[in-house]
């Protein structure tokens, strides 16, 4: 998305401007409230939440909930805290993002600069794979993972995320390389550079922005995935989203809201951090996922 503001040539009166600002601020409140309240309440002792007002600031500020959520909270049957699941997610996300991004870059390069008959259809088929409801592949995927002994392993999840991430990463790089001047590739070809040398020396140095977009997109998507994690993982590989759901839903007895909130924040932190640091690219990623070309 272009963030440059432009003069819209529209004139608005004083009253309508006041209304516009009011609306925009109320909406900002709407978006901030749920997560904001969650943060505030995660810093309260449990008694203050159940006995008090969720809108008020903590009387006693405490990091107890954060600490216990991380290392001792009961998730499922084990009092392990979120920590092992957080690492499960990291171990899954990093390789999956790296592999799908590299493949996407190479695919995009081939599909735009080494075109062949039928390449558009092939791309269409890859693109459609981004949009399928994953329910359609759950049963055979479970079988394949079972047969290959990858069921319940981080490796299995990496495979799944790479497979269903290729479509988007290819889309990003293809659209980016489509407007990369083909004459540069031709010039390099005439200079005697081959397939990989052209990619490495000519395209890669200009691919920084789209690589960031692609990495952010894949990171966000894979980190936030729940369906595959819930379907194909066991304790040693369950990602943090599944752990969070278990934490919130399976706790017996008193609902430890502050622990739930801290857990949710742990699960949200990496993607939020990425969003804050590279929000610009994140938005661009969202956009190219929809408005192609």
């Amino acid at each position: 998305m272009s963030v440059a503001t432009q003069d819209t040539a529209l004139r608005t009166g004083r009253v309508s401007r006041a209304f516009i600002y009011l609306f925009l601020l109320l909406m900002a409140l709407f978006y901030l409230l749920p997560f904001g309240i969650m943060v505030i309440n995660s810093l309260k002792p449990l008694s203050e939440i159940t006995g008090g007002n969720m809108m008020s600031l903590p009387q006693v500020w405490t990091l107890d909930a954060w600490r216990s959520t991380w290392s001792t909270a009961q998730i499922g049957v084990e009092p392990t805290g979120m920590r092992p699941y957080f690492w499960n997610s990291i171990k899954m996300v990093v390789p999956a993002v790296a592999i799908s991004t590299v493949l996407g870059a190479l695919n995009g390069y081939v599909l735009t600069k080494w075109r062949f008959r039928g390449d558009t259809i092939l791309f269409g088929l890859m693109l459609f794979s981004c949009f399928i409801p994953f329910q359609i592949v759950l049963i055979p995927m479970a079988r394949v993972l079972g047969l290959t002994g990858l069921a319940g392993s981080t490796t299995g999840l990496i495979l799944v995320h790479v497979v269903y991430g290729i479509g988007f990463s290819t889309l990003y790089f293809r659209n980016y390389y489509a407007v990369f001047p083909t004459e540069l590739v031709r010039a390099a070809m005439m200079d005697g550079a081959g397939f990989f040398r052209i990619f490495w020396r000519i395209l890669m140095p200009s691919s920084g922005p789209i690589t960031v977009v692609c990495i952010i997109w894949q990171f966000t998507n894979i980190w936030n995935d729940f369906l595959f994690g819930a379907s194909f993982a066991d304790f040693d590989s369950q990602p943090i989203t599944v752990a969070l759901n278990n934490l919130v839903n399976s706790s017996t007895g008193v609902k430890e809201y502050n622990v739930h909130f801290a857990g949710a924040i742990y699960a949200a932190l990496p993607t939020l951090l990425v969003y804050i640091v590279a929000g610009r690219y994140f938005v661009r990623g969202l956009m190219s996922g929809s408005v192609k070309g």
Partner: protein
Amino acid sequence: MSFLKIDNVTKRYGAVEVLHRVDIDVQQGEFLVLVGPSGCGKSTLLNMIAGLEEISSGTIAIKDKPMNGVHPSQRNIAMVFQSYALYPNMTVGKNITFGLEMHGVPKAERDAKLGKVADMLQITPLLDRKPGQLSGGQRQRVAMGRALVRDPDVFLFDEPLSNLDAKLRVDMRTEIKKLHQRLGTTIVYVTHDQIEAMTLSTRIAVMNGGYIQQLGTPREIYDTPNNIFVAAFMGSPSMNLLDAVIRLDGDDAAVEIADGDGAPVTLPLPIPAARLQGRDGTKVVLGIRPEAITDPDGADKSANTVVALKNVIDVTEPAGSDTFVTTTMAGKDVIGRMRADAHVHAGDNADLAINMDKAVIFDPKTEDRIV
């Protein structure tokens, strides 16, 4: 022996044939310009010479060696692209020597060649800059440097001046011509600008619809166009094309057109009637270039057949060096070119002189030139 031989070359995309059996022989040191409107196949032909597009049938040979299927980098050719295609992440020096590096030329030799080329093009102070920091003209020089450093058999230029502003374009045109004269290289140059074609080339191939319409020296193309397309495409303002009827009277040949009032005017032709035998009374298209329609004082004194007539001037366009006038003949706008200080005004019934030595006649059906 021809240096670059394009023999019966055809290009097909699926069932669509975009280039039909093209034959061109280019001699060493020639400057061949391929010119034509967009979509005429000129760039496709150039890309086939470069090896960037496959040849569907026929042969392209350089120094008698067939190039079909040979990788572009192995053809010993260099190309200057329309966008210059400078690698944005490399310095000017790296840009120029990248090809040598890919061909495994040692560093010392690369640097020596770079120095020589940079000197010749006067870009030595730019060598450490990135292309993004260069002006259009400087980029153009770097692109030429990249081609020159390879010392290729054939230089290919793909509309290299179309991204420059008008003044720079004229300067660079002169520069390219100087370079050609100095180095005596063989050049194939694609453009859609007929002035570039006329000024630069030793020979021109005018193309349209995948066919070569005419191949010849600039003078041949301009004075004796093969057909109506070539006549109309080359020259600016373009040739006046008027409906006319042949009149033969004994040994004298003439054409008859209608003047501004619709009255018939007979214009004698400087050729014997025998050359138009059997065509008396047939319809033809008469082609007269604007510079052959002048004020009487501006007429070519050495011309044999100058016809004087009066016609009403509709519009005058002083261009500084000349004044262009528009008048009506045979129901069409006709443009003439007068001296800058000729006294004509819109609405005048002015004296005109038509130099029939330069007139050409086309068959309206086949559109080919008869005379």
